[in-house]
């Protein structure tokens, strides 16, 4: 209770100020960007400035929608439809979040497994890492349809193919961080284990893995955000199925800017809560360690 109050005090005012500035800029930008279309298609020929401003901020197919339009759109979709309806944005957030989390878990497993074999195999250390780096320069959007089709031809459909794409984006930061983390134990600690003639498994369990946790968690935060992007990318080619990615696509397809921005905002909030989830786990796991 006390702590959350402190956090609110420390962050409340600065965030309000910064957000306030952002909103002011946003509304100003909305006028600048929408004016042309508003003048051409909405306003009567003898318009006044105040009419222009109001019209720009409430246009039905704006170039840049205003925050209140987005909030109202999200609010309407959440209140006017049951959660199980495809017209409720929460439904899409859930579909995306579920796949992203699954992919994240798979990415963690793959990422850690790769790091472990890289750290323990001289050959893979020298031969594999550059290819892992190269793998990340392959554009996901290009391979997503191929992966979806190939998995589809193997009879795998639904959540899993999306999770695979998410995994592809997740594992990389985790592998990099874990390779670093598993090598993080100071020389002296490794030598201590050496003098005890610890088995590699014991060394991993008792020293390497715990040492790597401070590296793992920040990477997890990056990874889960990347996984979310991956999931949404995977939802693009499959078009009209559910998910925030699909919302982005159909919003764009039907020229519904508000739908795009609502999906974007909800995606960001979803990303924030997923990274928050990782932070909570981190706080719990690392509670006995000193904050440097």
């Amino acid at each position, binding site marked *: 209770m006390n702590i959350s109050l402190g956090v609110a005090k420390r962050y409340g005012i600065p965030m309000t100020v910064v957000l306030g500035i952002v909103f002011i800029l946003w509304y100003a930008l909305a006028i600048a960007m929408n004016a042309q279309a508003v003048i051409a298609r909405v306003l009567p020929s003898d318009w006044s400035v105040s009419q222009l401003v109001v019209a720009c901020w409430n246009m039905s197919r704006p170039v840049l929608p205003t925050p209140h339009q987005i909030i109202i759109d999200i609010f309407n979709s959440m209140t006017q439809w049951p959660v199980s309806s495809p017209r409720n944005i929460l439904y899409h957030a859930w579909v995306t979040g579920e796949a992203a989390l699954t992919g994240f878990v798979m990415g963690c497993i793959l990422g850690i497994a790769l790091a472990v074999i890289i750290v323990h195999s*001289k050959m893979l250390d020298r031969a594999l890492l550059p290819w892992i780096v190269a793998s990340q320069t392959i554009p996901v959007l290009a391979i997503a349809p191929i992966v979806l089709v190939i998995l589809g031809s193997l009879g795998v459909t639904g959540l899993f193919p999306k999770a695979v794409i998410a995994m592809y984006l997740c594992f990389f930061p985790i592998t990099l961080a874990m390779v670093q983390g598993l090598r993080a134990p100071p020389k002296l600690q490794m030598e201590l284990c050496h003098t005890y003639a610890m088995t590699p498994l014991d060394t991993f369990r008792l020293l390497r893995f715990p040492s790597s946790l401070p590296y793992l968690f920040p990477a997890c935060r990056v990874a889960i955000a990347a996984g979310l992007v991956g999931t949404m990318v995977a939802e693009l080619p499959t078009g009209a199925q559910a998910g925030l990615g699909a919302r982005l696509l159909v919003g764009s397809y039907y020229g519904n800017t508000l739908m795009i921005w609502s999906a974007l905002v909800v995606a960001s*909030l979803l990303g924030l809560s997923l*990274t928050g989830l990782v932070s909570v786990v981190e706080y719990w796991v690392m509670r006995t360690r000193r904050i440097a």
Partner: protein
Amino acid sequence: MNNYKPGTLFIVLSFIFTLLGLTQSVVLNLTDLSIHSDHNTLLLGGFLLATVVYSCVSPIHFKHVLVTQLGTFISAYLLIHTGALFSPVPAFFWFYVLAVVLLANLSLKYLAELPDRQIPQLVMTALFGFWCLYVWQLSVTFLHVPQVLLPTPTAIAGALATHSAMLWGDFVQTVVKAVVAGYLLGNGLGIVTGILIERSPFLQRGFLPLANLTSTIPLVGIAPIAVMWFGFDWPSKAAVIVLVTYFPALVSTLAGLHSTNKLEGELMYSYGANYWVTLKMLRLPAAMPFIFNALKVNSALALITAIVAEYFGSPTVGLGFRISVEAARMHMPIVWSAIVVASVAGSLIYAVLVYLERRVTFWHPAIRKA
């Protein structure tokens, strides 16, 4: 002396698979007289066996490792020829494939055991890549995977050669224009803002949560908007890159500036050093490993972003344009050749960054060791 040889498991398995393949091919030859390729399958089996046995008895020294490597190459070459004789390929062929793959793995393991100076990193990486491509080629060819799903590496290489001029144009459009401009601007702004707001905890507390929020905005959502705002040509791609690279650079710069050791900070403090001196002498050098991390992560991110953004509208040139258009035309070899260009460009940028990082943060424990 400890006489355990690395990769014993690989030797044993490879040996078993060779024998399995050999016996099966002999049986097949005896039962089905219509096969006239006996000498070829037997030659392959014999050669494999010889290589496996040689690698088992030879010590791990430069020359012997090269012989093993060479034997593996010849076996792999014979394997392709053997496979071409049959349609569909017989079961023993796959035993040979397994044996060759294990042998390739073994020969790489031996190379890795040699001192670093004898075998440069690049050679290891290239060989590993070569064997991966080899397995890819074999599987696609002999499992009859449709080309529209996955082309063979040779087809991709062919497309690279025939369309080199076109791909060069795509490379210039996407990498030289969009990526370079967006990357420099995004990272530069991020680092500078990081340094500026580091002095103000107030701004940091206001900015960082926002930075977290925006870093979770998917770029696939921003790309269509950027095309809408900044047009079809490269500036819209650069704009998206600025947006996605800005916050990682900012956050890492801040983390780096905060990473200085307490004691070192107190030392400068006790000297009464002012902010800028401390920044120049202590905090920026200490932040460099973090900044380089961001630069490395951002390099891959920038490239992918440029390509993805081209999906949402582009002039008729660019790697993303090429990939999306040719994928729809079912010209998979061209799609993959564009992907190869993207990967090579990305890997080169990454390699340059790693080189710079080694020069700048030579003192960092992780780099010192190497």
